[in-house]
């Protein structure tokens, strides 16, 4: 430490020491996002993209769009309690799933059933919460998908903790956590990103900025230049990407995942996209936004974009296109059929999993319900 004692001279030339030990902890420049969302499709960067990947993304987008439509239809048939559609956001959902290795973990929000399905989860299991027969319809360990999370942003510290734990155990596992633009306002978002940066945890935070938190537009949610700019305040890189450009989202997430795996710490990715449907089937979007805005975004549709690129480069022929559609229809048909069967429920499950070992109290309450059910059955 130089200049430990301030120099005290008479008049003018007085020059005390700088505050001891102060230096920027990180260089902020590389943490700042680009001025505009990064894009691949229709740019030079597209040439470098792996055609097989582009085709896989395309097939998944088509499948995802069909899945969203089918799930929404199921709400009308009373087969789902509620469905928050990701129509228009399929590029983010699909790219998030595809950017991960099998050993990695996905932390979806309540809107991200599609990401879970794209990662391999049975769509019926993915929809259990929204059908209403149980909370989480799958064993999270099977596909390494955390329970769909409803309390906003609360899954983010979980992702950090899991990624940190994996690193402590010596596993090169990455966690990718998804959250909405609205969710970034929650304290848990802040705490999670800070923990991740301090611990250099291998996490990727994907914010789907779809313009709204239910009815609240982004302008009432934040005054930041972009949500990606929040990254610099945690000392991690922020990346801004066109969320309807599946290739771009995949590339940006892929880079972030690789950096995390290599020990480079977390990244915050903001994907700019749009929620084409209402918040859920129960919402009436006409109360807070106009059709023109929706139409503008429909014109920037993730499937159309990718299809344009693939067609332009001669990578997509009619057969392939039809194949994608057929696969999507098959998924929808299977989903329809299985969701139309009433789930077999055991009310006694209410008491089985509250604790590892049932307490006396819960045994008593279970006995009460059992007796009631038996009496009901006899009637």
């Amino acid at each position, binding site marked *: 430490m130089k200049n430990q004692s301030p120099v005290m001279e008479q008049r003018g030339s007085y020059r005390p020491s700088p505050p001891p030990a102060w230096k920027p902890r990180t260089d902020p420049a590389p943490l700042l996002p680009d001025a505009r969302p990064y894009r691949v499709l229709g740019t030079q960067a597209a040439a470098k993209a792996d055609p097989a990947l582009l085709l896989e993304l395309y097939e998944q987008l088509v499948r995802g769009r069909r899945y969203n439509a089918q799930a929404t239809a199921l709400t009308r048939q009373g087969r789902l*309690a*509620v469905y928050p559609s990701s129509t228009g956001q399929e590029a983010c959902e699909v790219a998030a799933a595809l950017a991960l290795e099998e050993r990695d973990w996905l932390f979806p929000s309540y809107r991200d059933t599609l990401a879970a399905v794209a990662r391999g989860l049975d769509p019926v299991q993915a929809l259990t*919460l*929204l*059908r*209403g*027969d*149980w*909370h989480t319809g799958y064993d999270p360990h099977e596909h390494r998908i955390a329970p769909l999370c*409803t*309390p*906003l942003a609360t899954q983010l510290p979980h992702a950090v903790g899991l990624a940190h734990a994996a690193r402590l155990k010596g596993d090169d596992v990455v966690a990718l956590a998804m959250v909405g633009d*609205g*969710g970034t*306002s*929650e*304290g*848990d978002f802040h705490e999670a990103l800070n923990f991740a940066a301090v611990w250099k945890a291998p996490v990727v935070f994907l914010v789907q900025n779809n313009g709204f*938190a*239910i*009815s*609240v537009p982004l302008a*009432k*949610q*934040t005054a930041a230049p972009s949500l990606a700019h929040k990254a610099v305040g945690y000392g991690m890189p922020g990346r801004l990407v066109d969320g309807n450009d599946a290739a771009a989202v995949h590339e940006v997430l892929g880079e972030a995942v690789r950096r995390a795996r290599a020990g480079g710490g977390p990244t915050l990715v903001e994907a700019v996209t749009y929620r084409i449907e209402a918040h859920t089937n129960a*919402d009436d979007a006409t*109360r*807070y936004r106009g059709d023109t805005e929706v139409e503008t975004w429909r014109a920037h549709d993730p499937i159309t974009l990718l299809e344009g690129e693939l067609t332009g480069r001669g990578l997509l022929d009619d057969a392939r296109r039809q194949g994608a559609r057929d696969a999507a229809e098959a998924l929808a048909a299977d989903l329809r059929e299985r969701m139309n069967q009433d*789930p077999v*429920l055991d*009310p006694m*499950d*209410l*008491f089985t999993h*509250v604790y590892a070992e049932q307490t006396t*109290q*819960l045994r008593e*309450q279970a006995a009460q*319900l059992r007796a*009631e*059910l038996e009496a009901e059955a006899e009637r």
Partner: protein
Amino acid sequence: MTTVADKPSTTAVKPASMAQALQRALRDSLAADPSVHVMGEDVGTLGGVFRITDGLAQEFGEDRCTDTPLAEAGILGAAVGMAMYGLRPVVEMQFDAFAYPAFEQLISHVARMRNRTKGAMPLPITIRVPYGGGIGGVEHHSDSSEAYYMATPGLHVVTPATVADAYGLLRASIASDDPVVFLEPKRLYWSKDSWNPHAPATVEPIGRAVVRRTGRSATLITYGPSVPVCLEAAEAAREEGWELEVVDLRSLVPFDDATVCDSVRRTGRAVVVHESGGFGGPGSEIAARVTERCFHHLEAPVLRVAGFDIPYPPPMLERHHLPGVDRILDAVARLQWEGDS
């Protein structure tokens, strides 16, 4: 002002829903007092996910009915600051479980600021919380967390069961110089009774229970969403030869010992009914204090019919969890009647 169930007083009275009454109470409060400010997630343009604030932003402007960023601690914390400057914030928590992030602000500040400052800085904040189940909501959308609020000195805890009370109690809560957690039984939002939204409406004082139905066999002590269930149970009980009295607490804090104990001393038997979990739930306090005060009048222990001690079930199973008529009658049957073993 009433201490027995409100009855339609004019023939012009048309059915109105609880949602309408709440909305009218907010509108009248905003109109009556420029310091009243409504705030929360989606309360402005959308009018709230339950439409309770519908039209208020349009009528009073976005400064009086404000869509906030999505952060419950921030909402309540900002409301504290606004109240410090003399405003009367009315905060909406979108669902019961989404009030949890605001607990520190609630417990450490909202409930304590008046006491902390020896009365110099009261916080007239109303926190509206749609609570309870029975609407087919998925996880986190059907919690009943009144036990937490009751255990926090410094808060009033109020919950209406009728359309008229929804209006009267919400107006009183907003007018209160103390913070009020105003619990709205969401499955009663669309229930209607004969309340006239155009008649001059009554502001109900906070802290008074009401006897909704008289009877001499036993007292059902209840509140909010369980009031209609208890009234139904009382009707059904007549077949078994029991005349059940139904007390609607309306306010959990302050607790109206007089009305409750008066009833229990007359009937000698009591069952507390609520949706919230039983263990450490509101019914435990109610049973304990009624027993302390009415011990020698009791023919049987005060029983509790409550939700099970489990996380709130998924929609398809919630009917097994919610206290219904049968479970209430079963408890009544266990009140050690003459001739029981």
